[in-house]
């Protein structure tokens, strides 16, 4: 009994020592960064029109700059290129293939990325458009062409509201040597269903000193899900139903107009 009691006390003391060491270690070496989102599971139903996403958390040290990145998994994209033919007419001139590129890329930071992060760190974590340009691969002949088409790619993605970069929109509140951060952003309805990642980077002396992540799942539900799945997995039946609906509506409206005297 005495032995057990001693052992319990030892364990309790040991636990407190570990906790003390952990907090000291966290504060002095790695800081403390937490991220949470109000929308870890966004459901797309028939009346979905995007969703407000709040990303918030605590950062320690309190003088660190913050970068919040929202991205989808990397993949490839094929797009049509337009160019001048015969130096006079604008036409499709080929296909642009982009590899290792996310479909969605949002970046929010407390200050301009170039002012708070070194180029090496930007490249390492793929933060900012220049880093993304260096990260992706394209079917182009040289760097000048890559820059030209990457800029067009960004314009195209921003027009679809799938890429965006903002500075100074993160709210910060310092308290007890820590800072609470908060940003409310509109999740675009154009973003397709899939798994997304929110990554918060604490930045100091042009280096990322810590990062934390949270997952967001965007999923179709109900009728939207049933129709999307049917369109993909049973195209023939889906096509026939679409045709029957169109034929039925055409005849139905025709009959209604005739009965109401519209056809005469």
């Amino acid at each position: 009994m005495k032995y057990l009691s001693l052992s319990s006390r030892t364990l309790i003391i040991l636990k407190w020592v570990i906790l003390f060491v952990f907090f000291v270690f966290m504060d002095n070496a790695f800081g403390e960064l937490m991220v949470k989102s109000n929308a870890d599971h966004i459901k797309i139903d028939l009346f979905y029109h995007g969703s407000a996403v709040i990303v918030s958390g605590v950062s320690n040290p309190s003088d660190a700059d913050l970068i919040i990145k929202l991205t989808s998994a990397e993949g490839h994209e094929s797009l049509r290129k337009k160019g001048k033919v015969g130096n006079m007419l604008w036409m499709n001139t080929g296909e642009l293939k982009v590899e290792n590129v996310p479909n969605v890329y949002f970046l929010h930071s407390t200050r301009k990325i170039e002012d708070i992060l070194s180029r090496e760190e930007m490249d390492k974590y793929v933060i900012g458009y220049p880093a993304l340009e260096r990260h992706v691969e394209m079917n182009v002949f040289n760097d000048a062409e890559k820059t030209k088409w990457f800029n067009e790619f960004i314009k195209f993605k921003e027009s679809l509201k799938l890429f965006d970069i903002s500075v100074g929109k993160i709210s910060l509140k310092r308290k007890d040597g820590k800072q609470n951060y908060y940003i409310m952003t509109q999740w675009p309805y154009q973003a397709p269903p899939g798994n997304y990642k929110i990554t918060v980077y604490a930045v100091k002396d042009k280096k990322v000193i810590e990062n934390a992540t949270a997952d967001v799942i965007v999923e179709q539900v109900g009728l939207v899900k049933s129709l999307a799945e049917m369109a993909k997995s049973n195209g023939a039946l889906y096509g026939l139903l679409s045709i029957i609906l169109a034929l039925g509506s055409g005849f139905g409206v025709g009959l209604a107009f005739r009965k109401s005297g519209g056809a005469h």
Partner: protein
Amino acid sequence: MYIYLPVAYTSINILLPIVLGFIVGLLSGLFGVGGGFLMTPLLIMLGIPPTVAAATDSNQIVAASTSGTYAHWKVGNVDFKMGFYLLVGGFIGGLVGVEAIKVLRALGNADFVIKITYVLMLGIVGAYMFIESLSSMKKKKTEEITAVKESKIAAFLKSLPLQTHFGKSGVTHSVLVPVFLGGFVGILAAIMGVGGGFLMVPVMFYILKMPMHVIVGTSLFQILFTCIEVTFLQAYKNHTVDFILALLLLLGSTMGAQVGAIFGRKLKGEQLKILLAVIVLAVTVKMVLDLTLAPSLLLSQAGGH
């Protein structure tokens, strides 16, 4: 109020496709054209991906042309016999056109040749229809000059075998004529990636000599079957038909087609022709501007027209 489109992956104000459908349905019922030239670019402007816009437009044209064909059939303005032969030709022409485009692409610069040919053809047809309709409305006596030209063409058409009478249209032609003309428009439609209504209507008027009101009904009948085939293939092979978007579009287009058919009956053939000529010329001008003005974006999603 917004509604989410499961295949287009976007959300849209529910009223926009209904109003858009009504306007395009109106044109369809009035002139016997599918309206894809207007609907597809407008849907793209609303944020619908080009492939989904083109495929879903075909689906709504099925509804609008059913509604329009029904309205015209009720007043005896559909020549099913002529429509059938044009369809046979169109089907064969479509198959030939798909192969022809492969050859053109292999030769290189196919898009350039196709677009220039299309713009020139629309421009010539539109300008000819406009001038001819204007002359007819002013009742200028140009019959003597055209009569000589027409007699040569008429003599050639009369010399062809398999002559048959088309009761609704009140014309007699060899069955080879509508099959050949349907095939010609089918080839062009397949190469250009458009429905072909703009070309079929003038062909039926100037070569087959059909009355304008019967042309509109018969053209819609033909478009109906073409778009049934396209809708099925797009849904089956490309999975690009958006059921919800099609439903909203056809709500407007079926009613628009009925209203168009009612208005059409109140207009004279010459008035219909000159209005169609103005629309064809407007589409030509739009295509010329698209080709010559620098676009705001140099990239677009693969697919579409």
